């Protein structure tokens, strides 16, 4: 695209500068390969973490960028998990088509509900997201003939990836598969938020009244990002159904929505790595403390939440970047 004047080049240059890769990012993504060599016993956990990170990324897109507080993100996760599971049970077990079917189902539900979401803010919005997920959970519970009800969906069989790599007990295939999907989605999300559309989303977050006034079609933007976020949550749900070969009712539950919210906030909202870091920290802590009864585990989660909102309002990454800035200033003032 030809840019006629310097003033018009300014935003383009800004967006370009945002898309440049930082060395820490390269290190981070290389580090995701370490579990293959360092912790081959934990590959199942690693694949769960990658899936949860993908789920957290989906919430961060609407929460951190468009400012939509959702207590019902599990609706899309669970819809896709059931869709992918049922598809592999009834039609065939080829993983990529299953992934596609699950994602499409979630995107469809997301697109339908986005028309409602775009109209509301504040408590009504929170309640509508929550209500939708509860409604779907009840529906899955009552449609026991299809979903297995409270016993969960059993008997999913997934064929080997590309017909060559079976989903083994150790999780080599599962982790590689989940990680590749996470990385590809991350690249797309990174491109998306550094586009003019991404800037418009941040505008909605900062001032929902002003954006329509400057001529941005806010509702259309919210519908688009909400559908995309639902599709990504769906990818995560379908991945979980395929790698664990079972779907339980809690895939749609309130707890899952609350957990993912905790992760995103813990890592830091409005930074793509926030959700991923939050998911890694949360899942590893959960695994290490899994000997603890779940009701006590939630005490620490609750305490963590209170401490984070009171002292680290921008999450772990926000705290780290503030600390880095502070050090940098100390350094350069000397």
């Amino acid at each position, binding site marked *: 695209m030809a840019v006629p004047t310097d003033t018009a080049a300014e935003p383009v240059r800004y967006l370009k500068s945002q898309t440049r890769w930082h060395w820490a990012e390269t290190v981070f993504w290389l580090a995701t390969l370490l579990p293959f060599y360092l912790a081959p016993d934990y590959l199942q956990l690693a694949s769960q973490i990658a899936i949860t990170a993908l789920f957290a990324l989906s919430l961060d897109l609407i929460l951190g960028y468009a400012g939509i507080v959702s207590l019902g993100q599990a609706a899309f996760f669970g819809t896709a998990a059931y869709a992918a599971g049922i598809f592999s049970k009834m039609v065939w077990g080829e993983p990529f088509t299953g992934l596609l079917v699950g994602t499409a189902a979630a995107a469809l539900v997301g697109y339908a509900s986005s028309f409602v979401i775009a109209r509301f803010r504040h*408590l009504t919005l*929170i*309640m509508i997201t929550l209500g939708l997920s509860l409604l779907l959970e009840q529906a899955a519970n009552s449609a026991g003939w299809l979903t297995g009800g409270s016993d969960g969906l059993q008997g999913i069989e997934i064929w080997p990836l590309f017909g060559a790599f079976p989903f083994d007990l150790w999780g080599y295939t599962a982790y590689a598969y989940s990680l590749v999907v996470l990385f590809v989605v991350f690249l797309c999300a990174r491109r998306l938020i550094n586009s003019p559309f991404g800037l418009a989303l941040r505008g909605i977050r900062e001032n929902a009244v002003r954006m329509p006034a400057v001529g941005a079609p806010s509702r259309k933007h919210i519908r688009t990002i909400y559908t995309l976020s639902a599709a990504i949550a769906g990818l995560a749900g379908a991945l979980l159904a395929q790698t664990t070969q079972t779907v339980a009712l809690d895939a749609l539950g309130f707890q899952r929505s609350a957990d993912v919210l905790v992760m995103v906030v813990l890592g830091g909202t409005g930074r793509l790595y926030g959700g991923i870091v939050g998911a890694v920290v949360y899942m590893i802590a959960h695994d290490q403390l899994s000997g603890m009864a779940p009701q*006590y585990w939630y*005490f620490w989660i*609750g*305490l*963590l939440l209170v401490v984070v*909102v*009171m002292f680290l309002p921008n999450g772990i990454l926000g705290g780290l970047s503030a600390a880095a800035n502070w050090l940098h200033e100390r350094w350069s003032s000397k």
Partner: protein
Amino acid sequence: MLPPVFGVLFDGIAYGMLLFLLSVGLSVTLGLMNFVNLAHCAFAMVGGYVTALLVNRFGWSFFWTLPLAFIVPAVASIFFERLFYRRFYGKSDLAQVLLTIGIAFMSVATAAWFFGTTQQPITTPEFLRGSFQVMGLDIAPYRLFLILVGAAITLALVVGLEYTRFGAQVRAAVDNQRMASGLGINVERTFAITFAVGSGLAGLGGALAIDIVGLDPNFAITYLIYVLIVVAVGGLGSIAGSLAAAILIGISDIAGKYYVPQLGAFLIYLVMLAILMWRPSGLFGRR
């Protein structure tokens, strides 16, 4: 002889009164400070455990525990308001949601630590047990008692809000907080008192709920969802709205479970979504 639909209505109204007690405090504080308090049902749970503890461990009569089920959560809520909540007025929805859901999570774990995860048994007085028949309907005296308590408290709240000086201050603050403080009303103090009364009422609701829905540590989360539905459907800051919504949700829930049990709680979520789409600020909401 009356058809069973009257029985459903009766049970639904009794259940609705319970939901009203649990949710009216949250509705008023949300209307007053726009503060999303997801720990509201934790205070209700405190009331429930006060009653269960006094009845089961110390052999108090059920009735004498009810004032304490009001006072203990009210005092506890003042403590929390001073320590945590007041720093978050005017902050984003997200910060408020996270702070209060964190407190709710901690309350669940604390209750499980002290009282175990099992349901708490409760013994109500002799004359509130069993049931009697009126025109072929089974009437449970306890539910009748619930309806009477709910009606009495509604009356007290309406009189308190409409005819007292403090009530006028609360209404002024709900309508326009800036204007009210400009006229010399101490909005923060008004809020603290309203908050304490609301939490106390929730505690009373929690105590009265034991006989109907039971009490275990998950109460703070399970009933939070019901309470939020009532508040959103009724509209913020409106007592009449909360009452109407609570009764509507109570009847929908009982009717749904009676006529289409396989759908479970499906009906109330559907009712909520339908009402919110029709009136985004709730039945009686003004904003």
